[in-house]
Each structure stands twice: as C-alpha cells, then as structure tokens.
C-alpha cells in the first residue's frame, strides 16, 4: 500500500530523544517495549485546534512578574524568539505555554517539597502568542536549579518548560529551554537523552539586543516545529 497524503508532516529527526533512556530512571517502567506502529498522516494528524487557543486556554499572559501584589525575587529576564517550521517558515498566531520553578528552584506545586523558599509573588505559569512573523516574547525571572531523586546528588539545570500546539496534532511539542554556560546541563540525564549536537538546540543564547537596559537580561530561543512532507507513505517502511 502506498498512500500520498497531502498535508502530511515530516517525521521525527535524529535529534529527538528515545522513549527509553535508563539514565533517566522514570523512563524504565513508563516507556513502551513494543515497537511503535508507523501510520500515514490522516486528517486526524494534519488538523488541530490552531485557531482556538484563546477560547481553550484564555488570553495571553506574557509577563510572569506581574501576576501578584508584588514583584517576584530573582533575576528578571526577557525570553524571546521565533517559532518556525523545518523550512524556516514562521508559525504565526500560535500559542506557547510556559511554566517554571521560581528563582530558588522551587515549583508552586504541593508535591514539590524540597527545602527552598516559595515566592508568594511568583506562580511561574504563562502563555504567549506568536505574532504574524512567528515571534514571541515573555518576561519572567530566571529559574533556579532544582534537586531530584534520579541519582545521588542529582540537580536539574535551570530550565523553562515550553508547550506548543502548532498547526496540527502532528506538530505538538513540549520542550525545555536551558541557559548558556550552565555546568549542570552536561550531567543532566533529561537533557542528555537528546544526542549531541542536537542537545544544543535546547540551549538559549544570551543576547544584548534582547536585554533591556537597567531592567532585564535577554535570552533568545527559537523553536522549530515539524515541516511539511511530500514523501509517500509505504506500508511497513
């Protein structure tokens, strides 16, 4: 069977992590053992709620530093970049959901109980929408590093979680943005589940253009979603 379906998307590239990566212990009992069944892209995979993010999730919340009475503590940052596809084409008017720990590395979550302070002025959740050129920008504080139980003396590097719907079910992406020159990245099993050099796609760049004088450090982070594909689907390929 050979199906050529208009509107298909490209498949995973070599930079995607495997489902099973034993250094990240939780993957051992939560990853499938059977091979994934490869399927062609039907309407189910090539459509999505792209036009409906505001009705689903609500309007933009691009400033994570003004959600409460006072300003959160920590290093104020601006994160901006573009959402594009693999051909470099912008993905306009798409939602990027973000969440992160506070400056001390503590999440506002009942199950995060490590001994670092909560900040009453910081939730750490937001939502930003790309403009017509695919650009986005949000304001936050730099998250702290965070200990976890994966192995002895394990610490996650500072990171911001980002979640994108993109134009279709097939373009869904959840990633993490890391900060340049963070020595913890080298020893982090979650980041290193992505083979080099592709791991570096998740490392943002400090940028003086994005940095606002007397106000906030700027980091640039572009996000690349799957591009369109015209390869016929061969059953069993």
């Amino acid at each position, binding site marked *: 069977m050979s199906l050529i379906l208009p509107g298909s998307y490209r498949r995973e*590239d070599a*930079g*995607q*992590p*495997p*489902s099973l990566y034993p250094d*990240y*212990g*939780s*993957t051992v*009992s*939560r*990853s*499938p*053992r*059977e091979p*994934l*069944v*490869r*399927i062609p892209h*039907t*309407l*189910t*995979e090539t*459509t*999505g*709620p792209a036009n*409906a*993010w505001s*009705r*689903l999730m*609500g309007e933009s*919340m691009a400033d994570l530093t003004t*959600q*409460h009475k006072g300003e959160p503590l920590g290093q104020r940052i601006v994160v901006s970049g573009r959402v594009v596809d693999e051909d*470099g084409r912008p993905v306009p008017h798409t939602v990027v959901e973000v*969440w992160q720990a506070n400056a001390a590395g503590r*999440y*506002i*979550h009942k*199950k995060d109980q490590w001994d670092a302070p909560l900040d009453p002025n910081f*939730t*750490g*959740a937001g939502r930003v929408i790309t403009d017509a050129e695919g650009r986005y920008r949000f304001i936050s504080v730099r998250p702290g590093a965070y200990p976890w139980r994966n192995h002895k003396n394990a610490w996650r590097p500072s990171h911001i*979680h980002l*979640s994108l719907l993109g134009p279709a*079910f097939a373009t*869904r992406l*959840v*990633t993490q943005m890391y900060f340049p020159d963070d020595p913890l990245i080298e020893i982090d099993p*979650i980041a290193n589940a992505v083979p080099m*050099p*592709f*791991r*570096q*796609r998740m490392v943002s*760049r400090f940028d003086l253009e994005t940095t606002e004088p007397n106000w906030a450090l700027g980091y*640039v982070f*572009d996000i*690349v979603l799957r591009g369109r594909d015209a390869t016929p689907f061969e059953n069993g390929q």
Partner: protein
Amino acid sequence: MTPEQARPAPRQDNQDPAIFGQTPWQTVGPFFHYGLPWKGGADLVGTSEIGARPELMPPEHYVLASPSPKGEIAGETIILEGAVIDADGQVIPDAMVEIWQADAAGRYAEGNTGFIGFGRSSTSEDGIYRFRTLRPGAIGDGHAPHIAIGVFGRGLLKRLVTRAYFEGDDANASDAILDLVPAQRRDTLIARRVGEEDGAAVWRFDIILQGEGETVFFDI
C-alpha cells in the same frame, strides 16, 4: 597571545545554523499542573471544571482558564475515561492526557465552531483521566470513528500517541489505521462501554504504557 585569542570559542547553542532542525522533545516532568491542565479543559461540551488538579497549588496560584459556555453543540455526549498504568501495573497519578477528535458529523472543527475537539485531562491520584465529549463521527470512508490521544508525564520524554476506537462499531473492520496494527494487538485500541452517567454513555479506555496488554502506540 592576546586576550582576544585566549577567549574560548563560544559553545554551540540554539542560534547556530549548523544544528538547525526540530526542537527536541522533553518531558513535562511531575509539576506541570499549574501550567497546563485548566479547569474545564477535559469538558469539551459543557462547563464542568474537570481536567485540572487545583488542589495541587495554593488557590491564589491558579492562574489558568476557567470553563466558559461553548455554544450550540450537536451530537451524543459521552464520557471517555481510563487509567494510565505503568510496567508494574501501578497507576500513574502524574500523567496528562490530551485528545483531538472530530465532531459528531466527522468534521474537524479546528476551533471554528462551538465544539473545538481538543481537551486536556490530568490523571487523578488514582491514575484516572476523564473527558466529557462527543461521540465522534467517521471522518470518511475507510476511517472508523476514533479519538486521537496523546499521553504526557514524568518519565515520558516524548508524548505517546494512540487512538481510542469504539467497541461494536462496524466500521472498525475496515479502518485503514487499525489495519496496520497486528491483529492480536488491536484490542488495546478499543474503548468499551461500561455504564452510563447522567444519560451519557461511559466508555473505558485504559492506557498501559508497558508490559502485558501494552497499548499500541503510533509513530506519527
């Protein structure tokens, strides 16, 4: 050597054109609840608050959406629910399930009508996800009605993708995608009607990540 020459070469990062390509997947981790699953996110047809776990954060830190009226929605309301289960048979209380589906007439609305077709549900402490939605229609010949599912969570570096079909639907026998699944594993993609709640049929679809009865996951 001048100081200029002594400076180490900058490390490769996100902006380097030499490594341009798909941004890699990473896990949502265990603490996504205050950032992703909103109240009502699992109710695609009404205004109930199912989907979120607001008890996992102080009330003043719930900043996500609240349910809003959806407008006119035609079709049969159903409950789709199930457990997310790991290799040891343990339920997973820190997973998130997303669905994407056609409306009762088999159309993907893409947000243009009252029924959007996208939902998000956290799993409960008992590992249960739960949606109120429409029973979808078939999107065309050779396609049986189904709901596309994405599973996220701690330990899931990438989303796992599966589909729920409906037990007893004659179209299952000629579905082009089910046809690609080894016959002995197709059962794992079939939701079963287990009861009724407030006039809505309850369909059960457990998601077994690994081991005996492992759900079929798709490479899309």
